[in-house]
């Protein structure tokens, strides 16, 4: 009688202990983001008081507007609005290109047999070891010759030509689809394009969504690409524009800097809250099948 009793007390203590540790860690993880928000909505002088003031004396939501419009008088446009529009346009193009091209290539690697396919796939995986910095100089030269430097094209055109990681992800997913359906369609004289478009693609929506999410994050976060190719401030992306703002402003108006940082972070967070399950499953799959 006594033994199960003591075991359950021990288990309860253990559970309580785990929760205590988890709650403590959660506070540590959330804290920087809360402080970011708190700083973003307070008056400048309250960012530099000791002891720190968590709740501002007044909520200055106007900080976001001010961050959006800083320097707009001299520039003639609202910089962060412009950066935001640039980033959205680029991101949409990159996501579209990534999903379309890698779905096609993934289908070829997963469902079609052709000589040299396995070697080509191995080579594709090996390209993940090629660091971007080694390609930087020749790519810059190449795009210069195309007359593309200073435009968005070096940033989005390559997205339409496949990338190893997404090809790999989609190939794994396509291979897990039973091929009875496509075989039957093939016997009925269905073209490969129709099999891909009407059978495989509709069944693969979750995997395609994961690839879209990852490429959204990659495009939204990209810094080195815009830094390399964009020259006119009006064509900057949010990441590049925020860096320019910080180095010009000397890093002093912390409330505005945090507001601008939240503007960049916002869309990513919103996407996460709507597609949490896809995010978590997508990441899990990348590691497990690897």
């Amino acid at each position: 009688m006594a033994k199960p009793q003591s075991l359950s007390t021990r288990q309860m203590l253990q559970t309580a202990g785990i929760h205590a540790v988890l709650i403590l860690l959660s506070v540590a993880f959330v804290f920087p983001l809360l402080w970011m928000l708190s700083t973003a909505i307070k008056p400048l002088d309250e960012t530099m008081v000791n002891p720190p003031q968590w709740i501002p004396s007044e909520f200055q939501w106007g900080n976001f507007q001010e961050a959006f419009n800083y320097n707009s008088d001299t520039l003639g446009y609202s910089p962060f609005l412009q950066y935001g529009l640039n980033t959205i346009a680029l991101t949409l193009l990159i996501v579209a290109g990534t999903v379309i091209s890698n779905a096609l290539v993934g289908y070829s690697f997963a469902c079609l047999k052709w000589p040299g396919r396995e070697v080509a796939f191995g080579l594709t995986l090996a390209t993940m070891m090629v660091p971007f910095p080694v390609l930087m100089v020749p790519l810059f030269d190449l795009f210069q010759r195309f007359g593309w430097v200073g435009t968005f094209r070096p940033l989005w055109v390559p997205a339409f030509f496949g990338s190893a990681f997404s090809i790999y992800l989609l190939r794994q997913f396509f291979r897990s689809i039973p091929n009875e359906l496509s075989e039957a369609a093939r016997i009925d004289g269905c073209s490969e394009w129709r099999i891909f478009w009407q059978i495989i693609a509709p069944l693969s929506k979750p995997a395609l969504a994961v690839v879209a999410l990852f490429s959204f994050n990659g495009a939204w976060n990209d810094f080195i690409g815009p830094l390399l190719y964009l020259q006119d401030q009006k064509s900057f992306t949010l990441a590049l524009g925020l860096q320019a703002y910080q180095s010009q402003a000397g890093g002093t108006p912390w409330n505005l800097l945090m507001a601008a940082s939240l503007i960049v972070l916002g869309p990513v967070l919103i996407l996460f809250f709507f597609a949490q399950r896809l995010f978590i499953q997508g990441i899990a799959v990348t590691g497990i099948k690897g």
Partner: protein
Amino acid sequence: MKKASKETIAGLAFASPWIIGFCVFLAYPLLQALYLSLTDYNTLNAPVWVGFDNYIDLFKDELFHKSLVNTFSFAAFSLPLSMIFGISLALLLNNQVKGLSLYRAIFYVPSLVPMISLAMLWLWLFNGDYGIINIALKGIGISNPPLWLSDANWSKPALVVMSLWGVGNAMVIYLAGLQNVPVSLYESAELDGAGPFRKIWLVTLPLLSPVIQFNLIMGIIGSLQVFALPYVMFPGGAPDRATYFFAMYLWDSAFVNQRMGYASAMGWVMFLMIFALTMVSIKLSDKGVHYS
């Protein structure tokens, strides 16, 4: 025969975006970089053949050594620490805790924060005078907390702290790996009298080893090319070039000093290092990796 060749044509057609992309955006620039690495090139004049001079210069370049030492010492701390921290968090969450998805979301979200926001946020948190971290340290009686960002001894540890905050992505991968471990294995280990730590050591970690290997390789590939975060937070690797990393020197050589050949040689050294380290970690851990 006819069916096979038709399928071949379709296969190549579907793969054609990548075949073109691979040739134009990967193979060509990679080989071109190899060629440029054997030349002097400043983009204005045609490349001048110099043989292995760039590589020999690299070998003697003290700034290059410094950037290498910085890169590897940062990786030597951030990789194992993130690994231990990520696995520990995943183990904690793998105890059938209530509210798992909430905790998981909390630990995961920081890893989503865009690099540029991350840089701004931590510049503020680590600020010497008004940063909340130093205010808190003073509050608990440390009268002289480090000036994280302007102290050459503390800027790398600051980056390590930031990388630990972003451990959520790896944690999700570990957690998924843990959830694949069959419960029966734990039960039989328990019957054999294994305590919680022995269970982790004997059952969990071996079964998690493919996932650990994956994260290790991705970590090595990523940490050798660290660029954007230190570039924004520590222009020029300041103070005292303590955070001047490999990729930053490469960038400066190419686009500040206009030494494209030299930068290309650095790029190839980086590529070969990543290649060698990946091969070594595949070979080494294949002995220890358990594939179910």
